[in-house]
């Protein structure tokens, strides 16, 4: 609870600062917010290390926190800090003067929503968290007033989001009909060993509702358009933080609510979804020229890999998934950092504009290359380790089907390597007359990139990170239902 309250405090501070401080001091708002976040995250780590690691329930079992939950929230916080750092320049831009404060406020609210999603042990709270995490994002997507795409993206986002929440709630009503309660543990006990048609349908609807946030195929179609239309900072936020939080929440739901359903019905659903997600995401990504759209599809297929950690249903899988999320945050944010820097400097976001970038901006293209390699899972960058661990964890489940699934996923990594290399090729190999000229990116952007790149390089090589995550999951009662 401390974290949620802390977050709300920051939210209020920012709100008050934005409202009551004089106009000329508002310039400092981004920095102040970022610093607040840093302090907050540091405190979060303090909780993580200092406090007891057993699960604590509150509000009549509606809310629960434990060391793992704190850890995943901290992981999200780190991502948010990088996003904030990277967006400082954008937030201080001409366009944003009127909306600077609101950006931060909305962002903090969505983060709060995600916290709720992760900690919720009651579906009502979960729904509120979900809405909290998605509705303000629609407003954020629409932040770029001058770009038509931004508006279009916002409309698409809000319409599909509301639709999906309608379906989700429909599913919840079925769950309610079956179980008579919306508390996770009660549902678990009520549904033990059942598999009625209604339940299956409810499960499908719930999965689709969460899958929408995670952009699993076929619930992903909004993703590309929204990523492309949204301001880059929002896109990066959307692609990593929102996805990471939802993935974890998804894990919690599947483990604590539907884990008891007869013969792990959801497992087969996930097999189908994972294969579809990875494959379709990759196939679409191949043909993209717009970098943001490209990363959208890439993030779709990454979501499929994250799901592998869930399907493993063992502690290793959970740890691998958290680790994957962490690494993915760094890798993707490095990529978005570069895209953002280039967009801010030149306004170009097409892959073709990146041709010959290495000649003029070697450092940027180097950072981008590392990000691409990490996303593609090339050693010695962190992405390799996270992918390897998640595959190892998945195979640990032991069935033949999982071998097939992992093989399909591995073959898909080749396709993904192909399109990641396309970016590298554009930057390093291709030549073009109208290369982006040499420019110097802002300090904040560079700082953001440095952090992300450092993460890419060191997260994998430094084993304690993963060890620590695995220790957490091993202790945790969170997954007690889940682990057989």
């Amino acid at each position, binding site marked *: 609870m401390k974290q949620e309250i802390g977050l709300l405090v920051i939210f209020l501070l920012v709100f008050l600062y934005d409202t009551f401080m004089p106009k000329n001091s508002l310039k400092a708002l981004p920095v102040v917010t970022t610093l607040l976040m840093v302090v907050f995250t540091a405190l979060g780590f303090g909780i993580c290390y200092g406090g007891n690691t057993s699960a604590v329930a509150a509000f009549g079992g509606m809310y629960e926190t434990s060391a793992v939950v704190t850890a995943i929230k901290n992981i999200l916080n780190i991502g948010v800090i990088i996003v904030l750092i990277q967006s400082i320049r954008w937030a201080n831009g001409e366009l944003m003067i009127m909306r600077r404060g609101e950006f931060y406020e909305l962002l903090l609210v969505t983060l709060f929503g995600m916290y709720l999603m992760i900690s919720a042990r009651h579906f009502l709270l979960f729904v509120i968290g979900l809405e909290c995490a998605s509705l303000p994002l629609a407003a954020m997507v629409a932040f770029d007033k001058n770009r038509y795409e931004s508006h279009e993206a916002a409309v698409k986002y809000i319409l*599909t989001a509301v639709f999906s929440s309608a379906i989700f709630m429909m599913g919840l009503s079925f769950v309610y009909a079956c179980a008579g309660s919306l508390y996770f543990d009660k549902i678990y006990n009520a549904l033990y060993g059942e598999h009625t048609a209604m339940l299956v349908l409810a499960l499908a609807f719930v999965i689709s509702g969460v899958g929408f946030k995670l952009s699993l195929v076929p619930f992903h*179609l909004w993703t590309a358009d929204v990523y492309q239309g949204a301001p880059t900072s929002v896109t990066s936020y959307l692609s990593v933080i929102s996805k990471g939080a939802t993935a974890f929440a998804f894990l919690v739901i599947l483990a604590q609510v539907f884990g008891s359903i007869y013969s792990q019905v959801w497992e087969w659903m996930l097999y189908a979804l994972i294969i579809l997600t990875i494959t379709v995401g990759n196939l679409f990504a191949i043909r993209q020229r717009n970098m943001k759209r490209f990363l959208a599809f890439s993030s779709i297929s990454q979501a499929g890999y994250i799901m592998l950690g869930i399907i493993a249903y063992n502690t290793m899988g959970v740890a691998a998934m958290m680790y994957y999320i962490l690494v993915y945050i760094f890798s993707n944010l490095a990529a978005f950092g570069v895209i953002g820097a280039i967009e801010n400097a030149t306004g170009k976001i097409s892959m073709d504009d990146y041709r010959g970038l290495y000649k003029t901006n070697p450092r940027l293209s180097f950072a981008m290359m590392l990000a691409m390699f990490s996303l593609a899972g090339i050693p010695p960058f962190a992405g390799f380790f996270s992918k390897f661990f998640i595959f190892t964890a998945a195979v640990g489940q032991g069935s033949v089907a999982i071998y097939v699934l992992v093989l399909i996923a591995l073959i898909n990594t080749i396709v993904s390597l192909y399109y990641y290399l396309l970016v590298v090729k554009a930057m390093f190999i291709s030549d073009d007359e109208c290369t982006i000229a040499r420019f110097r990116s802002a300090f904040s952007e560079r700082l953001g990139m440095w952090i992300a790149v450092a993460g890419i390089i060191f997260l994998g090589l430094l084993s304690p990170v993963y060890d620590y995550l695995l220790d957490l999951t091993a202790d945790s009662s969170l997954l007690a239902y889940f682990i057989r």
Partner: protein
Amino acid sequence: MSVTIPILILAIPLFMFIFLGLCGKKMSHLLAGTLGTLGMGTVLVLAYYTAFNYFFSGQACFINEAGERLQHVIFNTTWLQFTDSLVIKLGFLLDPISAMMLVVITTISFMVHLYSLGYMRDHHGVFEKGFQRFYAFLSLFSFSMLGLVVATNIFQMYIFWELVGASSYLLIGFYYTKPSAVSASKKAFIVTRFADLGFLIGILTLSYYTGTFNFTDLTSVPVEGLADTFRVDLSTPETVLAGISSGAAPIFMGASVLTWALVLIFVGGMGKSAMLPLHIWLPDAMEGPTPVSALIHAATMVVAGVYLVARLFPLYLMENSALVIVTVVGAITAFYAAVVACTQVDIKRVLAFSTISQIAFMMVSLGVARPEYHEGLGYMASMFHLFTHAMFKALLFLGAGALIHAIGSNDYTEMHGLRKYMPITHWTFLIGCLAIAGIIPFSGFFSKDEILSAAGNYSVWVYIWMSLVAFMTAFYMFRLYYLIFWWKEHTVREGHHAPHDQPWTMSVPLIILAAITCVAGFIPFGNLVSWNGEPYDFMAHFDWSIATVSLIVAVAAILLATVMYRKENKLPAKMKNAMPALWRWAFHRFYWDELYMFITHKIIFGCVCRPLAWFDRHIIDGTMDSFAIVTNKASNAIKPLQSGQVQMYVWLYLIGALLLGGITILCLI
């Protein structure tokens, strides 16, 4: 015997090769040539010393109390160990034939070294380009050839076998700017390589069963013992099966494994010795400088095949069928080469075919040798012929080289009537021709006579056949002789000075070789070389009836040649027109080259390589590419899903969710 001298025999040429190869360019031509020749001279002395020591010192390690000559391994160091028993060693084996070969090789090689000092420069005394390289290669060849003959095991032989092939390749292609030389060298290498494949598989088979590479083990292990290992009792199916199951000797495609091994090894010998189907490289190899032809393609390397069979002779004796094959191949080749030699115009080609024919003689001789006939006379005869042939054929080649050097052409139509201009060449050449024709008292008479009597002992048909070949040999050699030195008066071409005799460096070897040819026949070879080391009296087996017959045959052939070619006349043309088809086929060497060209270019390249390459690029690679193409196609195909229409998105969402639920429900219920 100390190891120093044998090591020096091998090391000096090797050192010369490396030294001249690396530093040759930095030194003058003359110095390089002189160094090479001196080096070879030293080796010559050492080799003579060694051979003399072997034959005549009477040391216990060379000859036992019974007077049998022994195989003596002077040194043998491990070079590469495959398994505990299969070990390649590099060593130095002295026995009668290797001692004899040492003498042959060093003699001819030294002569060639000396001769080349004169030959490899033009009339103004300017050395040819790559003179140093030439000497380096000659040294390399000498090294490899010496290594080959002193090999202690079959794999060492194979190693040096390959090396002589390579040095032959380099020397044939010495004039590397000449396309014909390049292709000739390539052909020589590839054809012999093909034969070596057989050799290799033969070695592998043989060594698998015997568990050794060593010649001493292979040949001096009691023959009966080996025969037990190899032979399977073919009388009843039960015994065959018993033989196979005991792992003794499986029958493979109708022949025992030993037969296969020996035949395959013989294939290697066929390649090197230019036996019939694999002979095509030797005539082309004449593209190399003439001294090279004398050394490699007349005297030493081409007899390696004979030497190989002789080396393994005790093994061959165990398999009658293998020896029959050797005989048949030899006989056919001898006849074929003789026929072709009668029609060629290029003097070196004539000599080349003559070489093929003579080597075939040696092969036949080995093939017909049996211990029961005159204590293996054929074996001795073969080695004897090898020795004499090396001398007189080198003599002939060097003589031909002198002619070519003087005239500037290989074609006898440009020569004619040279006897007055080049007396030394004329006389030495004549001696060579008489020797090869088998006229007493020249060396060829004795050795050929031994062969014929061995053949006569074996089968009268072989004897008649070989006599016919001997007749043709005398005929074509004297045809050549008359066409070069007689026929009509020499016409000096415009702009050329009259041909004259060569400098001393070239004359001396001619004279020495001619002298050897004159006297070599009287060497008591039977005392020195025999298949099992036991000396026997040479003259005891000398059959005067056969000798007389063969002498008559030779003289008849010479007379016929005299009639036809001494003076310019129309007889040859008439003969040619009388048998146009035969003449054309013989002139074109029975179209063997064309057949090979067809097989290699049309079949191997056209029907195997090219289709395979196409298959690789289009089918295999196409499959790999098609994965990418299919992926791209799939990407295009699902493009409409992302239509940009939010209602379509939602519809797909809905259908997806319903399908997910619906299918699961259907599966569960």
